[in-house]
């Protein structure tokens, strides 16, 4: 029963506790009343019998000393009217029975001696009283009283007490049923309110509160808590809304600025080309048509002008590519990167094979992305590797790919001059060069383009190197292509 206690409903628990306590109290009260009544009744019986015996002893003293049995008989027979008296015996000084009164069962008078049991013995009360005359014991009076009346009285008392107890208990059941509501109702209401709030996420609901006791305080605290939650909820929603609005505004501003910037760089590089072509074209015409009129210094200047204009054309091309990879929409498709890298390597080998080259490309690299953009990116990376390893005795380029969680990491490693890691943060910024043009040619736009392509594929790029021991570029692209 106790094991199931925690599954009981609150109402049942309250009711059970109330009734159990009351029943226990009633039972205890009844038991103690019965006990006290029993004691009282016994004491009363005892004192009554003592009074009766005292009177009889006083009455029979004279008859005893004069051995007047007739008189004794008449005295004793007066006890006949007292129905509780079972037996009465009168003994003379020598302990002989002078007269006796036996009830229905006609039992013998016991022998009077010192060891005689008196008081409540078994089913009867036994009383032995000396008959005295002038302080001299002249005989004994022995009385036994059956306890039927006492038993009947106690039985009746038990019945009445049990009956009253039952009636009180029934009344208590009704009372407890009504009274437990005072305690359980607010708790049940509170619990129902809490359930409804949890279910509907409606924080405007409030629990009904009555009174200022602990339950009232609990209800108030609960309502305060719900109020706080409601307020905080509103504040969070408001700030979320405003944040979203700000983000939207910023994003649109930013993309507009970006678009303007890209359009500007495109038009600038495009428009710069025409005058440059004129410079180059007329430079060439000047060299071919009037070359013999120029002295050596003039020819050198002219060569430098033409070289500078070629480099500037390269710069402009680079800017255009960078601008294109920034503006063009990405078309995601599966790209066979191994094949793409092989084609680039072949092109590079066609252009220059000043030192013997050894290029290892891992087979079966497949990524998801825009093939044109990826070609631009890896062309730049491979061209760099090619360029910075041109002074080695043998050029070794190693391209491998491995899967890292939801990324695919493609590493391009060369055995070239490498770079100083102190300048790593300038590596992917446009127009920043770690080597002078006299050491290695270049525009300073290549790695910026690579960076832009990788970012637009939601990927990452990193580089590690040691001066003189080659460089390693790792491009990480998401496996599914549309992450980030």
């Amino acid at each position, binding site marked *: 029963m106790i094991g199931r206690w925690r599954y009981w409903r609150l109402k049942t628990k309250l009711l059970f506790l109330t009734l159990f306590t009351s029943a226990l109290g009633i039972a205890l009260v009844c038991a103690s009343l019965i006990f006290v009544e029993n004691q009282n009744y016994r004491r009363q019986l005892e004192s009554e019998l003592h009074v009766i015996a005292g009177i009889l002893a006083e009455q029979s003293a004279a008859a005893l000393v*004069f051995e007047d049995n007739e008189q004794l008989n008449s005295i004793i027979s007066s006890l006949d009217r007292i129905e509780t008296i079972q037996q009465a015996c009168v003994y003379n000084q020598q302990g*002989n029975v002078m007269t006796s009164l036996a009830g229905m069962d006609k039992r013998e008078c016991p022998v009077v001696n010192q060891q005689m049991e008196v008081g409540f013995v078994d089913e009867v009360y036994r009383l032995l009283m000396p008959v005295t005359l*002038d302080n001299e014991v002249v005989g004994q009076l022995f009385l036994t009283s059956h306890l039927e009346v006492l038993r009947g009285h106690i039985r009746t008392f038990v019945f009445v007490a049990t009956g009253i107890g039952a009636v009180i208990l029934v009344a208590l059941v009704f009372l407890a049923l009504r009274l437990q509501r005072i305690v359980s109702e607010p708790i049940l209401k509170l619990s129902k309110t809490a359930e409804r709030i949890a279910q509907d996420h409606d924080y405007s609901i409030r629990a009904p509160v009555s009174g200022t006791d602990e339950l009232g305080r609990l209800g108030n605290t609960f309502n305060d808590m719900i109020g706080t939650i409601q307020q905080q909820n509103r504040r969070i929603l408001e700030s979320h809304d405003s944040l979203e609005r700000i983000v939207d505004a910023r994003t649109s501003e930013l993309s507009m600025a970006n678009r303007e910037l890209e359009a500007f760089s495109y038009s600038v590089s495009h428009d710069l080309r025409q005058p440059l072509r004129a410079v180059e074209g007329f430079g060439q015409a000047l060299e071919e048509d009037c070359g013999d009129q120029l002295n050596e210094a003039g020819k050198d200047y002219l060569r430098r002008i033409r070289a500078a204009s070629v480099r500037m054309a390269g710069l402009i091309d680079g800017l255009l590519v960078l601008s294109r990879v920034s503006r063009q929409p990405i078309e995601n498709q599966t790209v066979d990167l191994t094949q793409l890298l092989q084609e680039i390597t072949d092109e590079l080998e066609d252009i220059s094979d000043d030192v013997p080259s050894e290029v290892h490309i891992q087979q079966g690299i497949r990524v998801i992305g825009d093939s044109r953009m990826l070609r631009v990116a890896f062309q730049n990376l491979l061209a760099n590797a090619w360029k910075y390893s041109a002074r080695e005795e043998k050029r070794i380029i190693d391209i491998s790919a491995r899967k890292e969680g939801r990324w695919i990491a493609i590493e391009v490693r060369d055995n070239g001059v490498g770079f100083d890691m102190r300048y790593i943060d300038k590596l992917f910024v446009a127009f920043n060069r770690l080597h002078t043009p006299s050491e290695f040619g270049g525009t300073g736009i290549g790695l910026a383009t690579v960076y832009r392509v990788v970012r637009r594929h939601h990927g990452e790029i990193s580089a590690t190197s040691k001066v003189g021991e080659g460089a390693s570029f790792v491009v990480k692209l998401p496996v599914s292509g549309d992450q980030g």
Partner: protein
Amino acid sequence: MRDHLKYLISLVLSLCLGLASAHASIRSEYEVKAAFLYNFTRFVSWPHTENTSEPLEVCVFGDDPFDDLLDPLRGRKSQGRELQLRYPGDVTNLAGCDVLYIAQSQSRNLDELLKLAQQQGMLTISDLPDFVRKGGMVGYVKQGNVIRFEISLKAATEAGLTINSRLLELAVRVVR
């Protein structure tokens, strides 16, 4: 069978008890009368006897029928007073007696003795027939084998004696 045995045993027992009580009643007539004499003193109160240290004098006047049966009374106490036995030989020696037993031999002097007793507040006891009617206070009578007594409350009252009602209840006859 068992009931028979029980009956038999109870019969034997009651027979034994009956014999014992019969034995008790076998006492001689004067043995009983001596005991009665003592017992009478316990239910009678004398005037002017607040002082319990004063002995209670029992006088046997005339030919003593008790022999030595009264001797055990000597020194016994009645209502706190010590009993003393006296056998006065002459009427003049009767002064100071509280209880006066008048033997049958004194039947001729009865009137004189009773008068004296009444004057001096003595309890008069006698075997004489019709003693109470003649003005005595307590008289033994015999009913079959049983010794009983008669009381004259009138005589006792005249002598200034009070007799306990318990004693009166036991008397065969009370003259008022």
